[in-house]
């Protein structure tokens, strides 16, 4: 059940330049999963629309969610100043999320090997996915791409997955992007899940070839619940809602099988 609720900030810290780690106690946590997102509202009545932010984590007791986001404008700048005890207005839980059961069974008989690729601010949702897949007995390989050695969340990936790094400037791990690191380390996999900038997702779609690839898309959104048709992506088949090859990223996604969308 979706709802707009008031959550209570448990903690917030800056974990890399411009990247913040915010934990909010909210009833929405009980239904939150990897790949889903919430809309966070500002207190500024001139900036009205909810800011879509992916779920980076759900606490073990299912009472709080963790959002790791980049300050990109006046809304996220306001969020970065939230402190313990502050209230935060949130709409959620939004989007379809990753199908853990499907990913766990993707190799047929053996345990599945799932490759997770995250680029920049596409990294946070991959962490919750790594944890959920790991808990489901899936062999997880994470390859995370950063601009330079000022990484974030990396140590948390290592506890639930075989982890590799790519940096644009070569200061850590493979010099280049996440696919360069996959090739350099000759990583084999049954399925790939990815979140990051569009050029990266396009390259991954091509790279995956016949193997199942699930990508998490973003787009400018308004309602977040599938009513306004603001955030659409072209689909190969006729979409079930509007019957015009335009699926709604906020509700039909944000996770799509790469072969189903034209990006």
């Amino acid at each position, binding site marked *: *059940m*979706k*709802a*707009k609720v008031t959550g209570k900030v448990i903690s917030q810290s800056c974990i890399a330049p411009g990247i913040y780690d915010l934990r909010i106690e909210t009833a929405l946590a009980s239904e939150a999963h990897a790949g889903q997102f919430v809309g966070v*509202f500002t207190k500024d*009545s*001139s*900036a*009205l*629309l*909810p800011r879509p932010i992916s779920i980076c984590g759900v606490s073990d007791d299912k009472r709080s969610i963790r959002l790791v986001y980049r300050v990109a404008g006046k809304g996220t700048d306001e969020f970065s100043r939230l402190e313990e005890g502050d209230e935060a207005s949130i*709409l959620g839980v939004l989007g379809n999320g990753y199908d853990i059961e499907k990913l766990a069974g993707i190799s047929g008989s053996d345990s599945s090997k799932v490759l997770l690729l995250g680029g920049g601010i596409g990294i946070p949702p991959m962490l919750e996915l790594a944890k959920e897949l790991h808990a489901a007995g899936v062999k997880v390989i994470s390859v995370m791409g950063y601009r330079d050695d000022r990484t974030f969340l990396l140590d948390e990936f290592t506890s639930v997955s075989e982890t590799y790094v790519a940096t644009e400037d070569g200061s850590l791990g493979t010099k280049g992007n996440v696919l360069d690191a996959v090739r350099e380390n000759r990583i084999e996999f049954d399925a790939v899940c990815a979140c990051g900038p569009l050029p990266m997702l396009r390259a991954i779609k091509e790279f995956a070839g016949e193997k199942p690839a699930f990508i998490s898309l973003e*787009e*400018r*959104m*308004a*309602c*977040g*619940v*599938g*009513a*306004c*048709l*603001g*955030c*659409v*992506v072209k689909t190969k088949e006729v979409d079930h*809602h*509007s*019957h*015009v*090859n*335009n699926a709604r990223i906020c*509700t039909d996604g944000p996770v799509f099988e790469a072969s189903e969308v034209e990006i």
Partner: protein
Amino acid sequence: MMKTEVTIAGVTFKNPVMEGSGTFGSGMEYSEFVDLNKLGAVVTKGVANVPWPGNPTPRVCEVYGGMLNAIGLQNPGIEVFCERDLPFLSKYDTRVIVNVCGRSVEDYVEVAERLSDEDRVDMLEINVSCPNVKEGAIAFGTDRNCLENITKEIKAHTKKPVIMKLTPNVTNIAEMAMAAESGGADAISLINTITGMKIDIERRRFALANKTGGMSGPAIKPIAVRMVYQASHAVKIPVIGMGGIATGEDAIEFMMAGATAVSVGMMNFVNPYATVECVKGIEDYMTRHGIEDINEIIGCV
């Protein structure tokens, strides 16, 4: 006993609160948040004779106190609408107003005729005011003669009461209201969005793929109140007012300006409970001011 019922073209609404076409789908998405039975009516997203794909993305962006949209009337077409959305709406005790869009007079007429025999449809709202499609829509709503003629054509092909939805992108709203009335419209609704533009100065690009978009939200409310006032004083047919309505107080303001009913639009995105809170806000206002019948305040200023 407090009376919140209002009547438009012989159709009685349990209260004057509806939502703005395009902000609420066919009610399905927001039925997770609000009890549709509590609304005066559900006004559907614009529906055409065939599916429309809409515009390229980005289709929406935020602006100070509101937003711009250039969705381009993406819709599944009348057949899917009748098979899927009307049965859904049949489960609720609320009025159903179907918003109709088209590229030509024939397109509008085809949809209007198709809906004539659908019992679940209480009224049609004709979108002659969308600023985001190249053909049809706003072209009909910005020319006095075109507006009068298309109203006449649609009226000649449907038994359902017809609301003409007007655009604010004209020099004289009273004249357009009169054109709709003389064409035989049973009611008018206004305002649709105001054409706007936003430029992303960091990327040196338009914020919307369509370059221009329709502005909505609280920032446009004073313009909408003024236009509802001017239009309602120019015609005898009822007016449905909209433009930035967020609360019961906003609804009361539009009704005092001359609106018989009101629609909550963009503010559904900000507060998914806005419609029902609006109903409650109107009732609270009536209690506070000892008003027995909401009709007393219509056009009272």
